């Protein structure tokens, strides 16, 4: 099918048709919008690739160099690679590579006349980044040498005029200048320029002249731009020991993991509500800042990261209100080692389009933006994050961003790679830098060694794991009833300790305090004194101090000295023998009696059942009220309330109206049935129906129509047609006793109804 010959392809579609499947797949991966919906053929694919929206989207992913090359092609029109190389202010190798990429993206194709940008590129580039502002070359362009020669001939005034035009949009009005003069006859600077074809009349705009591309290139020293376009702006950097960077970053990374665990653990039992608008209330975010001892932006970042990583989600609580709770992914997350947990969180952050930095700021209407609010997202955020980290990764280890100039230079470099979008890039890059520091991706404005793996697709986990505090399996217990774990405790141990003691201070280490209440908490869940002592002895590296041993024993001593149970009723008597007698009465077995003191018996039977049963057993019990007084009861005599009648007259009027309507409906329905022919009526053609209806209008007859309503239900109606207009029949419907409109095309049959 290939129509390729020595000079290129007939069309973009042809070119695409000639590509291998792999190359096509590459194109579709790079420009995913081309695949939805799947194009029918290459013609459609090619045309879709040149649609303005698709072009704009493709251009958004280009670097400044790529945009400049594309722009040069627009200026040059159809041309050869060698020509492109010559007019771009960049190294030839870079230009070739760029051209290859642009070809792969189907932004440039090889026509029979040479390379050309797809149509619409000029519009899509507009005056945005990468556009040189030059006009396309004129069709029969002068050779560069000739342009240079003519420029040299100009008078200073003409040259100044030309420069002015070139700097101000490349267009001017010709004014009184004659457009057809020879260089020798030129009287004004403008005529000098026009006569030498350094300015040419703009086609279709009388009185306007423009600077052709080749002249613009010559004015800019032979290139479309004065500045080289293949130089990536450098980062402003400073030296900082790589160890220190890693230490600071790993510290933040550890904190992140710890904070997420703390927060979600807390929210698992005390979930905050979901706002009607979908976010987290300001009050709840404030509570997070207190819980985590961080400032509000960090709190928002932690919350958003949890949600992005799928560890936090909204669901209805028992009362049906929406609340934010940890997901079951949180439980599996907890089982992983800290470094792996961090990787999960940070990968989610990288891919997330959320804008945590906007939390707490006010929108245009003055409303505070809430964390987790659905609208806090930007599609360009993941790209900005990736771009920023990639830029940071270009710095070798031991080099960080300079204190004040670092951020602007970083923004500039990221902008070089993606000049067109997004508009809020400066902000997004700055946010990324702050967030990456808070998350432990970077430290002291330098990328942590382990975080490089995030950029180049490796696994950061081993690198980070080596930097995190090693889990410890012991604590130091002290006489002031505190225990200090001098590092992160092993997970199981930490949970046990949290049960037995209260956490006082968290961080790299954890301080626990033993109190009678905390020890009781352990007893409540079934620990015994022996187990507690054993646990403390094994977990403590130092001898368990005597006051703690004493505390445990003392708490055990008072534990359970008061017992609580459930009973429906109680019996008490000063006469112990009477109670014993009751308790041992053979018929009392079903009453669930249990003696809890010589003079008190409790029962699992409710009082109103118990009382008559006891009387049956021959006892003479009296009922005691809540305050201990004796209550005298007699059987209740039952009475019902007199039913209240509604006003009879109103009711009967309403009733009769309803009955009348039913009758009308039934009667008309009946008529429909009675007039129904034995054989089913043959469906009418629309014209037949029209004719029958018009006839009925003429004669004022009642007809039975078969009608299919909006829901597709077919029914028979008895109607008196009134008029027919615009495909709609207006008729009096007997069943509804009202004038209705019927669509003619839905009328299936029309039959005369005998009057009566």
């Amino acid at each position, binding site marked *: 099918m290939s129509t390729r010959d020595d000079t290129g392809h007939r069309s973009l579609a042809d070119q695409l048709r000639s590509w291998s499947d792999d190359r096509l797949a590459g194109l579709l991966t790079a420009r995913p919008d081309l695949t939805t919906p799947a194009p029918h053929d290459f013609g459609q694919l090619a045309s879709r690739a040149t649609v303005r929206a698709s072009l704009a989207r493709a251009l958004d992913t280009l670097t400044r160099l790529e945009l400049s090359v594309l722009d040069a092609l627009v200026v040059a029109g159809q041309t050869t690679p060698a020509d492109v190389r010559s007019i771009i202010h960049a190294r030839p190798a870079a230009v070739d590579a760029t051209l290859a990429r642009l070809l792969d993206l189907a932004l440039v194709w090889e026509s029979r006349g040479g390379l050309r940008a797809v149509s619409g590129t000029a519009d899509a580039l507009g005056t945005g980044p990468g556009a040189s502002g030059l006009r396309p070359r004129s069709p029969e362009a002068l050779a560069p040498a000739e342009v240079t020669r003519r420029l040299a001939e100009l008078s200073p005034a003409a040259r100044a005029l030309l420069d002015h035009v070139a700097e101000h949009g490349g267009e001017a009005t010709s004014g009184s200048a004659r457009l057809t003069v020879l260089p020798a006859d030129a009287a004004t600077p403008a005529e000098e320029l026009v006569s030498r074809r350094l300015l040419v009349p703009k086609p279709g705009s009388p009185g306007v002249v423009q600077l052709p591309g080749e002249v613009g290139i010559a004015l800019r020293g032979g290139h479309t731009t004065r500045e080289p376009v293949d130089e990536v702006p450098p980062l402003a950097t400073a030296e900082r020991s790589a160890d220190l960077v890693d*230490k600071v970053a790993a510290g933040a990374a550890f904190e992140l993991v710890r904070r997420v665990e703390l927060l979600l653990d807390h929210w698992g039992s005390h979930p905050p509500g979901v706002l009607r608008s979908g976010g987290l209330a300001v009050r709840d975010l404030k509570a997070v800042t207190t819980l985590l001892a961080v400032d509000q932006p960090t709190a928002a970042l932690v919350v958003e990261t949890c949600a992005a990583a799928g560890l936090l989600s909204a669901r209805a609580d028992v009362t049906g209100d929406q609340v934010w709770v940890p997901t079951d992914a949180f439980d599996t997350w907890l089982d992983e080692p800290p470094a792996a947990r961090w990787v999960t969180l940070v990968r989610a952050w990288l891919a997330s389009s959320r804008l945590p930095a906007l939390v707490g700021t006010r929108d245009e209407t003055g409303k505070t933006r809430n964390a987790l609010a659905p609208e806090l997202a930007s599609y360009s955020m993941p790209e900005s994050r990736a771009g920023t980290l990639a830029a940071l990764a270009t710095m070798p280890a031991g080099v960080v961003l300079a204190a004040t100039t670092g951020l602007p230079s970083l923004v500039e470099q990221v902008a070089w790679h993606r000049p067109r979008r997004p508009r809020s890039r400066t902000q997004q890059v700055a946010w990324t830098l702050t967030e990456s520091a808070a998350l432990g991706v970077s430290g002291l404005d330098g990328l942590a060694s382990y975080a490089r793996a995030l950029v180049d697709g490796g696994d950061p986990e081993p690198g980070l794991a080596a930097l995190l505090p090693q889990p410890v399996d012991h604590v130091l217990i002290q006489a002031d009833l505190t225990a200090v774990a001098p590092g992160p405790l092993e997970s199981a141990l930490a949970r046990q300790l949290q049960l037995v003691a209260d956490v006082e201070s968290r961080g790299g280490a954890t301080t626990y305090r033993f109190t009678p209440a905390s020890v009781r908490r352990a007893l409540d869940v079934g620990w015994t004194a022996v187990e507690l002592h054993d646990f403390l002895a094994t977990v403590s590296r130092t001898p368990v101090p005597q006051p703690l041993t004493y505390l445990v024993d003392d708490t055990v001593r008072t534990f359970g000295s008061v017992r609580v149970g459930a009973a429906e009723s109680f019996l008490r008597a000063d006469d112990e023998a009477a109670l014993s007698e009751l308790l041992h009465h053979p018929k009392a077995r079903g009453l669930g009696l249990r003696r809890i003191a010589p003079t008190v018996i409790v029962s699992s039977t409710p009082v109103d059942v118990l009382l008559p049963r006891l009387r049956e057993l021959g006892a003479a019990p009296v009922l005691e009220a809540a305050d201990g007084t004796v209550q005298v009861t007699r059987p209740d005599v039952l009475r019902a309330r007199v039913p209240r009648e509604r006003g009879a007259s109103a009711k009967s009027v309403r009733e009769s109206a309803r009955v009348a309507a039913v009758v009308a409906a039934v009667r008309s329905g009946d008529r429909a049935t009675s007039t129904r022919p034995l054989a089913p009526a043959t469906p009418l053609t629309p014209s037949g129906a029209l004719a029958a209806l018009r006839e009925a209008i003429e004669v004022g007859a009642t007809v039975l129509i078969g009608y299919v309503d909006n829901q597709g239900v077919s029914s028979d109606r008895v109607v008196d047609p009134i008029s027919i207009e615009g495909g709609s029949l207006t008729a009096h419907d007997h069943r509804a006793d009202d004038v209705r409109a019927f669509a003619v095309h839905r009328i299936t049959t029309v039959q005369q109804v005998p009057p009566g």
Partner: protein
Amino acid sequence: MTDGPLIVQSDKTLLLEIDHDQAAECRKAIAPFAELERSPEHVHTYRLTPLGLWNARAAGHDAEQVVDTLLTYSRYAVPHALLVDVAETMARYGRLRLEKHPVHGLVLASTDRPVLEEVLRAKKIAGMLGARIDDDTVAVHASERGNLKQALLKLGWPAEDFAGYVDGEAHAISLDESEWTLRAYQREAAESFWHGGSGVVVLPCGAGKTLVGAAAMAHAQATTLILVTNTVSARQWKDELVRRTSLTEDEIGEYSGTVKEIRPVTIATYQVMTTKRGGVYRHLELLDARDWGLIVYDEVHLLPAPIFRMTANLQARRRIGLTATLVREDGREGDVFSLIGPKRYDAPWKDIESQGYIAPADCVEVRVTLPQSERLTYATAEPEERYRLASCTHEKVQVVRDLVAQHPGQPTLVIGQYIDQLDELADKLDAPVIKGETPVRERQRLFDAFRSGEVGLLVVSKVANFSIDLPSAEVAIQVSGSFGSRQEEAQRLGRLLRPKEDGKSAHFYTIVSRDTVDADFAQNRQRFLAEQGYAYRIVDAEDLPA
């Protein structure tokens, strides 16, 4: 990762593992800016507070040093937010300075105009300032020097006071070191104070704070006003000064409820200073009676609120505060900082103890079980009565007897809160009792007898808590106290911490009733002891050897 001894927590506590090789070195490095919160046996807890950081700043340390110290000794990564916070907090001190202006007198000057603007807009401060002199300077009413410092601290912009001090009326004072010598830490404390101008010296009870005061007076060479807690303490100060310095009895005046002498060195009690008659403080003129060159505040943590107000007017005079603890039960540490001055010297108790200047103590809590009848009374008593009922149980009497019997021949103090209980104890133990109503002369006599060994057992109420030097006491038995005050515990322990000649350890017993509020309060006190590094034991009364 370094293997340092310090763990920096994000909640601004520092945990120092003291068994670590570098622990001693690290403690020295962090002591200037971190406040020791607890010092139990394995891990000491320090806290970074704004006051602590400002204290350090006042002592000439800068944020970089602090951050560097934290990074050097930290075992794990130091939370970044904390480092930022340290730098910011420390930068707040000294942005505003109180200075002497040759023309306008006392002025508030700033190197940071927005800060000055911020404080000028504060309502509380408006009345204390005079005319704006230029963009960075504003006049201050001389009388408001103290109030202004207090208010600025509350705003979070503590001012550095460069306005200097009046020299006061010169008076020759020197230490008479013929029979003794000033200990190294006492000398260091006095010098730190003198270089700082004004401030507080923190030393444990029994570490010789009086001598630090005397050394400060020797530096000042000027008339001195000494404010102490009570009359007995005033007499002790007088005795000590006569013994240790060139001052003679005639040069030292006592200004108390009974005697009103104003001499070059005058010792006044807090009580007389705060006595009001007809709604006015009658003895305020004492503060202006002479041109004092130095004012010594004994037991700063007890300084009553009216004295703070008076002190606000004394900012032009040098002030030294002496105390065992900066912890104030009323939380007015900030006032001490702004009105008397920053902490100039601090030494951990255990350090001084290990140097042998104060006696080690063996702390024991003895738990008694209330008899059934008393338990019933206790259970049904009004909440405000419960503490008295629990702490005055008769069970305690027997335990006290047993304990006294355990330490025959050792000078013993029985300390309590309730007079009835003390009287009963005195009666059962056949020992003299000192309480509030005991005349000063009688108290003096009994204390002297106790010191000389004539009386071996003394029952005392809380009048003995403060500043009465009973160096010979070897055993203290505490039967009741005022609701678990940490400060009281420090004082009572202090009674026993005076160095013993033979290096014997002191015994400190607390008797509490189990399962009552008494035991709950006791927990507070124990915690304080444990946090100070004193291991203690709990024993049941039944387990005591009879």
